[in-house]
């Protein structure tokens, strides 16, 4: 309770606890993360265990429709797998790829951004040019290129095993420039502040100043970008999987599920695509809402009314 009061007292805490949107979206997000993390326990079935599936159960509609079955609340797909279970497991893949790629992008981008901003000189110019060039290339394209090159280099069988890592790398590589650019700009501002000069006069090393003094002061915009970036990463992964160049079909993510279901849209089995799609949208929406709230709450320039 004491922690609650302490948090509530800060500006951010107050803003959070008073924003229905923020509370709602974070609860939603936490539920999804929890479910996918503990998929083994939460999910009614294990849809990838061949013993559990029977083709006899294929194409069953959701339980409220005609022909529905209470055993499969959201219906089954073309192989007889329970939709709810596949969605929960699928969202786990989506979240893992999303988190991992954003963390990768964040570490790489923040490191390059802070060092470029602080050390300056030719190093900074090169890093910034690299960032500029890469920012003009949209992330999807970047991810596709990296993926394509990876496919060309790695043999097909190994590729399936490595697909997730390649994907994380591809999406991460496409997102790091955002972090680099923002952290460099913030570092430049902090660099000119007098507490940095004071630290230099004391004799503290550059690395110490960069990571102990400057870094804690520039984390705010990084958090905002990370949150919004997470949503983008999840969308990117699902897009790539939908296009067929994402995770291998043996460990389907939400995007893969949508791709499977797309084939049956016209023949009337709408639920196979619909539910994964809704889930994906809800996931992305909750993250975006959170990120949106965070951006406004952490922005010192916006005058509060």
């Amino acid at each position, binding site marked *: 309770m004491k922690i609650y009061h302490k948090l509530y007292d800060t500006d951010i805490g107050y803003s959070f606890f008073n924003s229905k949107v923020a509370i709602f979206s974070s609860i939603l997000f936490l539920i999804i993360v929890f479910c996918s993390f503990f998929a083994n326990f939460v999910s009614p079935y294990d849809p990838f265990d061949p013993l559990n599936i029977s083709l006899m159960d294929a194409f069953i509609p959701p339980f409220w429709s005609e022909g529905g079955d209470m055993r499969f609340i959201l219906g089954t797909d073309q192989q007889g797998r329970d939709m709810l279970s596949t969605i929960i497991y699928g969202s786990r893949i989506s979240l893992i790829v999303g988190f991992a790629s954003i963390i990768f992008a964040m570490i790489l981008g923040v490191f390059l951004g802070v060092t470029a901003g602080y050390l300056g000189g030719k190093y900074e110019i090169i890093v910034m040019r690299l960032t500029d*060039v890469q*920012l*003009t*290339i*949209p992330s*999807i*394209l970047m991810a*596709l*290129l990296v*993926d*394509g*090159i990876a*496919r*060309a*280099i790695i043999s097909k069988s190994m590729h399936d095993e490595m697909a997730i890592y390649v994907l994380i790398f591809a999406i991460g590589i496409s997102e790091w420039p955002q972090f680099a650019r923002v952290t460099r700009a913030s570092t430049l501002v902090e660099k000119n502040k007098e507490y940095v000069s004071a630290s230099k006069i004391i004799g503290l090393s550059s690395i110490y100043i960069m990571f102990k003094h400057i870094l804690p002061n520039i984390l705010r915009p990084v958090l905002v970008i990370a949150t919004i970036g997470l*949503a983008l990463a999840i*969308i990117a992964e*699902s*897009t790539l999987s*939908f*296009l*067929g*160049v994402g995770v291998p079909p043996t460990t389907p993510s939400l*995007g893969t599920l*949508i791709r499977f279901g*797309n084939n049956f*849209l*016209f023949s009337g089995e*709408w639920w196979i*695509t619909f539910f994964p*799609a809704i889930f*994906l*949208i809800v996931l*992305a*929406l909750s*993250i*975006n*809402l959170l990120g*949106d709230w965070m951006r406004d709450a952490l922005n010192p*320039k*916006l*005058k509060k*009314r």
Partner: protein
Amino acid sequence: MLNYFLKRLFQASLVMMIVAFVSFSLFNFVGDPVNNMVGQEASDERREEIRDKLGINDPIYVQFYNFIENIVQGNFGISYQLKRPVSELISERMPATLELVFVSALLAITIGILLGVYTGIHRDSFLSKLILTLSLAGVSLPTFIIGIMLIYLFSVILGVLPSFGRGQVIDLGFWTTGFLTISGLKALILPSVTLSLFQMTYIIRLVRAEMMEILQTDYIKFAKARGIDEKIINYRYALKNGLIPVITITGINIGTLIAFSIITETVFQWPGMGSLFINAVYFVDIPIMSAYMIMVAFIFVMINFIVDITYYFIDPRIRLKEEKE
């Protein structure tokens, strides 16, 4: 002024060179092109023959030079998978993509800027809040889902718009256009709306953020204190000051649209460069991949160049800095 242009031109060429080199490396060193072309059965002699013909045994700089020479003449090699010259494939499909991108860009940019300016100026009106909520939804909806939803609604349920293809196109020789037929125009509607939606919402939010920041600057406060009419302040001053970042956004967005067209073309089976590229990635068809990379880099670099030139004419501070040198 000439200096400024030349400097930018030089930078652009540098970037193109780098892209060309990466593409070249892809082409030559990734995988074995010979294997890709002739399969497992061919004899070693035959392979040597092909290697010579392809020039693989020549030193690198010769190969690179030949590569550049080919590119400039429009020769991108032959597709591994489709066994046709890549340049032919690209020129067949380019009009489809460009028309789609053009219409989407028009939609995204005009509506995006209009709504962005409105929500930036009238921060608290009900309409603004509505637009913002919808735009949040737009950013959370992946493009392919929008496409699928629209197809389901308008093709399956309502049956008024086609769900795939370009409709009937008129062949103008070097260009095939869908603008001149009703079925062509009908076929454009869903894909272009799909493609533009994500960008539109992005632009709305960015423009809004820009406008809000500008409206808090000192020079706006001073203009208000001088009694200048609010309408003039909003639409003349703030807009002109907001133009610079908006132009950057626009430039980047055309690039993004080209990339996202890959997705849209896949969903709608639109016969453009994007779907060609996706197939190439799937089948590891390197000539197409590298050609696509170069084409797209070229378009991006050109857009950047145009954006830089436009800055020059809009921001007097840049003009004066360059003139001093």
